[in-house]
């Protein structure tokens, strides 16, 4: 049996967290994620869980740090400028090895930017927006259904690796409505014991949750342990969707909102007799480098399309190792590339050969 709804992406994300057993939510109003914090205000209370509208983004992420250290599944959500403020806490979560889910409903930047959908926070999300050597899993949904599914999954991943996980989405996916369905009475998955949690030292030695290591060589050992974990994440968690990539002469690479438009471009180009494909990274970190390298060996050309000035394209160039075959098309400031613009780019690239 399925439960079926017509939902906004923001609310689907909130419900995904509820169904994943999120016990603590801390948030602060910011557009375009306001439907999400309002939804959590109602649903967390209905489920007898903790909802706090904090005094700032800094406080919200640090409440999540505390709730996570106490053993609870915890989440905070925001949009670009607010996510910048949360970087301090994200770095501490990574350093303390605490699980948490952070949702970024991206808007235009830099600075206050605007409130339209954008993808300008790719670098911040995938390259470590906070200080120090750390990584977090970054999931990029492309539909309301995936807003639910990926948020639900993010909690299990966070617990599995004791690491923050980001759901990176944008104002388009957050605010549009689509059908949503999930198993009736779906239960949290990937529940693990948390012997490291701060619960009071009853029947065990006193514990500590910290990221400070002052002894000679101790911090490097801690970092090496973290890097080994990131390697495991990198080996096991890469996810992508391939659409008509086999035998394609040109492969479009896009995630989230843009991947929906590029999919339509692939079909339009097929009608013109152009063999185009779409590779959609589902995890932005770890990035599907191996798949892109494999496709690149066939002499394929690539067009990366983003709602930014060219961020993911750097990772694609690293994977392809032949910059002449990698093109980029992007719109900034909350503008969304149209199907016509993207198809036009493909035509230009083909003429150039």
């Amino acid at each position, binding site marked *: 049996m399925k439960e079926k709804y017509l939902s906004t992406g923001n609310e689907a994300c909130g419900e995904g967290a509820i169904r994943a057993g999120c016990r603590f939510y801390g948030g602060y109003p910011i557009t375009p994620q306001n439907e999400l914090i309002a939804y959590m205000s109602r649903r967390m209370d209905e489920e007898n869980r903790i909802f706090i509208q904090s005094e700032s983004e800094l406080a919200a992420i640090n409440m999540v740090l505390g709730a996570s250290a106490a053993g609870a599944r915890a989440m905070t959500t925001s949009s670009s400028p607010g996510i910048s403020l949360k970087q301090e806490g994200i770095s501490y979560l990574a350093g303390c090895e605490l699980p948490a889910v952070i949702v970024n409903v991206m808007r235009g930047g830099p600075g206050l930017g605007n409130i339209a959908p954008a993808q300008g926070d790719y670098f911040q999300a995938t390259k470590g927006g906070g200080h120090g050597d750390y990584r977090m899993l970054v999931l990029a949904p492309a539909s309301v259904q995936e807003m639910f599914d990926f948020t639900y999954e993010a909690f299990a991943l966070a617990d599995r690796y004791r690491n923050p996980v980001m759901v990176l989405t944008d104002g388009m996916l957050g605010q549009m409505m689509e059908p949503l369905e999930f198993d009736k009475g779906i239960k949290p998955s990937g529940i693990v014991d948390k012997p490291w949690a701060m619960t009071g030292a009853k029947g065990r030695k006193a*514990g500590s949750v910290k990221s400070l290591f002052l002894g000679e060589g101790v911090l490097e050992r801690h970092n090496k342990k973290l890097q080994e974990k990131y390697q495991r994440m990198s080996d096991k968690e890469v996810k992508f969707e391939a659409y008509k990539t086999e035998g394609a002469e040109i492969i479009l690479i896009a995630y989230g909102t843009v991947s929906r438009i590029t999919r339509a471009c692939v079909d339009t180009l097929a009608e013109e007799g152009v063999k185009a494909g779409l590779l959609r990274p589902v995890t932005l970190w770890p990035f599907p480098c191996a798949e892109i390298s494999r496709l690149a060996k066939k002499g394929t050309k690539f067009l990366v399309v983003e709602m930014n000035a060219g961020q993911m394209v750097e990772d694609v160039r690293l994977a392809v190792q032949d910059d002449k075959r990698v093109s980029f098309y992007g719109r900034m400031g909350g503008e969304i590339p149209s199907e016509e613009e993207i198809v036009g780019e493909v035509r230009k690239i083909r003429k150039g050969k």
Partner: protein
Amino acid sequence: MTKKFTKPRSMKDAATHYCPGCGHGLIHRLICEVIDEMDARENAIAIAPVGCAVLAYDYWDFDTMEAPHGRTPAVATGVKRILPDRLVFTYQGDGDLAAIGTAEIIHAGNRGENISVVFVNNGVYGMTGGQMAPTTLLGQRTATSQFTRRADKEGFPLKILEMMAVLPGVTYLERTSVHSPGDVMNTKKAIKKAFHLQLEKKGFTMVEVISPCPTYWGLTPIEAMERIKKEVVKEYPLGVVKDGG
């Protein structure tokens, strides 16, 4: 022979990194004595600050975690809301609490978070080398007030307890000191009262402890204690500021 004096059970057998004459070691111990007397060691969760007391988990034998600078009350909020029956307290210095963490302390108090705060006020940033804090006295020379703190340039000493007193969510506020044996005992009493009120779910409680920093006051340990008695308590009067328990 009977044993009259011993290390509290809640205190690890470790030498602290604190300077000679520092108040932190003493205040750490008072907290441990209170926790032992309340039989709360297995129920306690402390949130350590960024500052001199950042290594508190090396000295306390109960669950202790760190927080980013000033976010200590936000972290404690997260812990306490998930584990409402535990004894959750923050231990914060005046840089952590009265400067970078001003928003967090005020809003934790205003929400009436059922946590306790031990606020150690020594009027300087100790860990980073004795810089001016919001609590630094007028006329006091520090690493970043080289011509002393002047009201027209650096503003006035910040009285956090008096600010917090107006918040309905705040239950109990007391300022104590550790410059004499009697004041040490008062400090212990105040901490115990705050912890008891928390376990009775009475709301937000906070004890400000005036503490010496001989190193960055440029004084001997004894002179530092005398300075508290002669100068510091004039700016920061001791006593109960609010008692709604």
